């Protein structure tokens, strides 16, 4: 079947989709957006978390056909999404990501734009992305995309979360490397920087 939906602000189309494919598979294998991760494919790890019409969901549990006509934000679009939110005021719905956006080709050959094409040094990042790097919250990084999408959404609706709030909001995202302490640090750091910026 054919599926059309918006990813990171750009209309996308996938053909010959098998009806049992998940949104995760379509993003990763058909749209060149492998940032959302395939760690469990049973909704038990959060690595595939994306925003679906603004709401964080496990993309492995969304049938591709269910995404028809809807707005998806993935980790690849998180920096742009956060930037637009900052510029246009806190827009919690994916709908606000529809301006601008990237071309299909650009999305498929996605590359961090920075002063250095290899490490992406100088790439424009969302506050929560930068905080994850600075706090040492990234080790193997496989859980990172899902955590970033979830943490960004937490900070969107709660700008100064308590530790218990952070733990609850991220309790659907497994990490096997860090023991979570640096992830807490990163979210605290992003919240603090967000507070300073206001």
């Amino acid at each position: 079947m054919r599926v059309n939906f918006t990813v990171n602000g750009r209309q996308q189309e996938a053909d010959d989709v098998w009806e049992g494919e998940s949104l995760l598979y379509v993003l990763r294998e058909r749209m060149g957006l492998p940032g959302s991760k395939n760690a469990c494919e049973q909704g038990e790890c959060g690595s595939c978390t994306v925003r679906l019409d603004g709401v964080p969901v496990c993309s492995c549990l969304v049938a591709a056909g269910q995404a028809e006509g809807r707005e998806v934000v993935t980790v690849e679009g998180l920096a742009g999404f956060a930037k637009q939110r900052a510029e246009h005021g806190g827009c919690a719905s994916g709908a606000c990501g529809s301006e601008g956006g990237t071309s299909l080709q650009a999305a498929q050959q996605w590359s961090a734009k920075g002063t250095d094409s290899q490490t992406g040094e100088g790439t424009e990042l969302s506050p929560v992305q930068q905080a994850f790097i600075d706090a040492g919250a990234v080790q193997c990084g496989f859980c990172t995309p899902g955590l970033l999408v979830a943490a960004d959404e937490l900070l969107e609706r709660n700008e100064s979360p308590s530790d218990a709030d952070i733990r609850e909001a991220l309790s659907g995202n497994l990490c096997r490397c860090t023991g979570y302490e640096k992830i807490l640090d990163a979210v605290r750091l992003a919240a603090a920087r967000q507070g300073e910026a206001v």
Partner: protein
Amino acid sequence: MAGTKTTTGAPTDVTQKHNQGGIGESTLRPDGTLKVTGEFAYSSDMWHEDMLWGQTLRSTVAHAEIVSIDTSEALAMAGVYAVLTYDDLPAEMKNYGLEIQDTPVLAHGKVRHHGEPVALVAADHPETARRAAAKIKIEYRELPVITDEASALAEDAVLVHEGRDDEYIEWVSHPNIVHNQPIIRGNAEEAAKKADFVVKGEYTFGMQDQAFLGPESGLAVPAEDGGVDLYVATQWLHSDLEQIAPVLGLPEEKVRMTLSGVGGAFGGREDISMQIHACLLALRTGKPVKIVYNRFESFFGHVHRHPAKLYYEHGATKDGKLTHMKCRIVLDGGAYASASPAVVGNASSLSAGPYVIDDVDIEAVALYTNNPPCGAMRGFGAVQACFAYEAQMDKLADEVGMDRVEFRQLNAMEQGTIMPTGQPVDSPAPVAEILRRVKARPLPPERQWEVADGDADVRELPGGLSNTTHGEGVVRGVGYAVGIKNVGFSEGFDDYSTAKVRMEVINGEPVATVHTAMAEVGQGGITVHAQIARTELGVQQVTIHPADTQVGSAGSTSASRQTYVTGGAVKNSCELVREKVLEIGRRKYGSYHPAWATAELLLEGGKVVTDGGEALADLAELLEGETVEIEAEWRHRPTVAFDKRTGQGNGHVQYSFAAHRAVVEVDTELGLVKVIELATAQDVGKALNPLSVVGQIQGGTTQGLGVAVMEEIVVDPKTAKVRNPSFTDYLIPTILDTPTIPVDVLELADPNAPYGLRGMGEAPTLSSTPAVLAAIRNATGLELNKTPVRPEHLTGT
């Protein structure tokens, strides 16, 4: 789809240019930005335009003869390009294995464990491949399963492997024993007579899974020369290569391996998983083949931590000195050997813990059974022993009537202590000090879950969001533990690494490029390599070349060894490059300044400087038109094999020590546990990157917590089938299960190691588990000799 036929997701150079430091600084990861933007390509992200998907058909029974396999229906399906079984293997070599080549690439005549690969399919869509695999008909004739020591060593026991001719067989008492290692030192029998108190215990350690988040995956691309390019997530490229090439019937140079992004490892990627299968399918079909396990298959796709039974006896005098220790450790190796022999060596040689015990009688064995194969996991044999000896220490301290920490401190080893193997501990061993540090920390406040109006924040209570208690039945407990882990490959293994370092001028700036085959699995090895290059070569910009087999072996990313050994190799190659650079400098400028001939010269801040700080030349100028490149192997000091009968020998390179204090709250009525804090102290010799060191300690601590209270692969003892191969029923800690983990890092240099560093990745996984268990025992008064602790154990139901 992208219009090129190139492989997407192939790793490229990673360059750090700005604001990054040398050793000792908390330099940020060079791959950090790629990882937070989703651009970092893991092995499952590899993609090729006309690639096929590989699917593995695995046995549904644990032990059976294969009567027949019929692949005809599968082959006839549209979209299916190949179906392979044992009969299709192209070379004489049809097995692989880390230490014993006992593992069939595809089952031949027999399957020995649940989930063993039997056939392979390549198809144009993963669903087509799955449907085709489902159409392969296999007829099994089931055999009785061997699941424990009693069934393995029974007189009429079926042999899991017949006709063994490996190097271990002559030393074992039964062919269903992979390997055994006794260690006899002093006279435990005699020494026991001096004991005023003797404590015996029997302990059970459950089967733990590495549960790395990035599933086994990779892409094999057939090459025009008849070889294959393989992109894969692994812990040791060259070890894979040695096992892959013979089975493919190819010389090693025709199997070109590149490390793809690795989503965690923890020992679970030391063994081959899909590597050979993907290559076989690619070579057969002439098309690139991608294999990605899902979580269910991943539980069958890699080995697990050995479950163990441990029988201990310790004695002490009334003033608290240990008199002797006897132990027997039975590790279940499962159906194939994997790393079992080395795990046995570790379990036995570290079974006495970080204590002074002159008289010991030790034996560790690993069994062949029809349970899932077990092998490497973080802590590697030392974890199981630590769980048991630390429980023994608490019991013995109680018998003697001493404080549990003081009892440990009284018996703690220190520099100069002789190990049960006769090997002296010849660098700092601050066992008493790390215990002191965790004990000295203030305890976290009680009843942190109380909020206004006498209500409770359930997120802070056992049961968490499940709202099982508002404080009822909740009892606090505190427990301590300390452990000892070896660093590096032991027992005479030639444990070297290789580093190629190049220095040149690019755009007017001196640049160092570091190329090793080290598997970056998340630990931060590449960060440290760049730091070392900066420190040794005085450059700012460092490029890390992707890890591949175009450079010599780096050894395994395991055994806490990479910063030590490949770090050591990078340091060594940098030093050799520096000598060459200085030679060029002497040639070019030697006549202009006497210091070129006389002074100790360093490379700092992009210049050649004297040890007095005088700048002699700009590196950019000095290296103009020159490229210095050196590839060199580096070795730590050699070790020797343990004597097969007595276990004596200087078998280990270095030791690593960590201590934990666990504070838990237990809902004693429901048997639910909340770990409140897991304070830890560890000596790391020298923290090359303090941020990464703390991250490793916290991560390792949490894996220890997991196996204390929730993690276990449950195998049905009647069928040897795995009952919980999913993240629904194999639980690892969430952020709500993980407490704050304060870390105290000591830096007592080991004079034998590069920069004085001490391998540190595994030690925190050892003592975390027994500390949590001790705290739960403290809260409940229960004996709890099994891990993980389940609510049933705490409620007597």
